[in-house]
């Protein structure tokens, strides 16, 4: 920044997208730039399970803390849920390093747009930008470095929380109610299918999501459960009309401990009622 005159490209009006600007000016800084041949899937750790669900007036996203590499646990305390801006958050599954870079680019993208334009993107607009970033990673995905996000946000105009799922080609699918991504999401979604109700309040929904993550960890070796000895608990991010905040560890710890206490009585977790 201390070189001489600012390059002409910086002074040229045009895009409000940081990713587009980066692609034009410094493509070497893009996540997954310079792909090399071969399958790279085993080179980097993988992040696993993310779940999200809406409740009246907001949306919650939660993720476990484990990253694996082959049969080994690579990270026990990884962060896979990130605030993207005040009213949205993104959880990531897949190739961990690349995913974190992608999130950093996405966060910069949203902030950059806001500063240049003086206004925020719509929730749909944000989801669409994330599509473009995921699609930009397609070459890496073909080589085994897949990144699949789960995007949640609060739509201030409609007053509701929204969830968007993605595929590795950047395909974007709005989800209703709840969604999951990552290796353990199969089991987590099974749990959510039985436990989720659209009218749950915030605290109950947090408990439901932690239950779902517990079920994922129960059956998927790549998903980490609550780690009482190390005091590592799922990351839970809540977004409402008042903005977003990540729940403090102590709060999630209390929920997780309650879940574990319940499982000591009934290892398979709460029973869904058999009614029509």
């Amino acid at each position, binding site marked *: 920044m201390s070189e*001489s005159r*600012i390059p002409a490209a910086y002074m040229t009006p045009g895009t409000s997208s940081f990713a587009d600007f980066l692609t034009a000016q410094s493509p070497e800084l893009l996540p997954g730039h310079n792909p090399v041949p071969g399958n790279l899937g085993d080179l980097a750790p993988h992040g696993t399970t993310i779940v999200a669900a809406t409740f009246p007036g907001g949306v919650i996203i939660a993720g476990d803390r484990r990253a694996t590499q082959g049969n080994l646990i690579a990270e026990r305390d990884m962060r896979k849920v990130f605030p993207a*801006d005040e009213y949205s958050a993104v959880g990531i599954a897949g190739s961990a390093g690349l995913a974190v870079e992608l999130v950093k680019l996405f966060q910069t993208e949203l902030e950059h747009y806001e500063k240049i334009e003086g*206004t925020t993107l719509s929730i749909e607009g944000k989801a669409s930008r994330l599509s473009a970033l995921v699609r930009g990673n397609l070459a890496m995905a073909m080589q085994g470095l897949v990144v699949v996000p789960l995007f949640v946000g609060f739509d201030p105009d409609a007053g509701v929380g929204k969830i968007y799922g993605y595929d590795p080609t950047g395909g974007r699918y709005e989800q209703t109610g709840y969604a999951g991504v990552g290796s353990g999401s199969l089991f987590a979604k099974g749990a959510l299918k039985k436990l989720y109700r659209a009218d749950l309040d915030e605290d109950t929904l947090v408990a439901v999501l932690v239950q779902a993550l517990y079920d994922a960890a129960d059956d998927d070796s790549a998903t980490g459960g609550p780690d009482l000895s190390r005091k590592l608990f799922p990351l839970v991010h809540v977004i409402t009309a008042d*903005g977003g905040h990540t729940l403090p560890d102590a709060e999630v710890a209390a929920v997780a401990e309650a879940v574990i206490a319940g499982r000591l009585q009934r290892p398979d977790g709460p029973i869904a009622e058999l009614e029509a």
Partner: protein
Amino acid sequence: MSTPFYVSPEQLMRDRADFARKGISRGRALVSLQYADGIVFASENPSAALHKVSEIYDRIAFAAVGRYNEFENLRIAGVRLADMRGYAYDRRDVTGRGLANAYAQTLGTIFSSGGEKPYEVELFVGEIGDAAESDQLYRLTYDGQVVDEHGFAAIGGAAEAVGGYLKERYTEGATLEDAIKLAVAALGHTETEDREIEAKNLEVAVLDRTRTQPRKFRRIRPATLLEILGSAAAPTAPAEVEAAAPAAVEPPAEKPADKPAEKPVDEAPLAPPADDDGEPPIAPPLD
């Protein structure tokens, strides 16, 4: 056969400087004041959508007078430089000094190159630190000079009268309310009279180190300004004529100000956000 003119370099530069100064002096003044918790920027600006003061990065703000298209280009370049550096390195590696340098080089090169017309702009680059002593305020002129200002400074038309007014009354470590009152009084001061400027014709923004969010820039909304200025800015002030531009009451750019303040990501929810917590509504990335 015609003999080419000889124009001495001194004369050439003087002419260019006169040209730039004339353009700048047509606009209104903009003042910048250091107060106890940061830096406040204030200007008379009837448009609520076209800003003179803007956020560049977490702790860095930009304020400018002169030709809008020229300083808007500089602002966008600044945002791009800052975001690029923050993305490639770390958020802490983006500094106001670096940005002021880049602006100085750019303005200086444009001023002395024969092929371009000099920019008719004057800028502030402000950066706040953890304490008032580490706050920085740079003033940049059309020819690329950088002045490291202390306490207060004014740019734009009538900058001398406004600066003189501030010099007599400025005190260090003032509260935000006092700083804003002084800034607005200074903006209305001329050699001949003291005008009262309506709150809706003011653009006031601060870099506020008491904000819990990493992004310290916020705009002060007209309603809050009205409270601070009290009757000093009654709606009958003569400044009404300036509001010729049909600025909408709630233009899109102001919309985010209606949203609640952001919260720190790793802390418990804060008390309901203060009314004056304007833009930006977005929590920046923490990792």
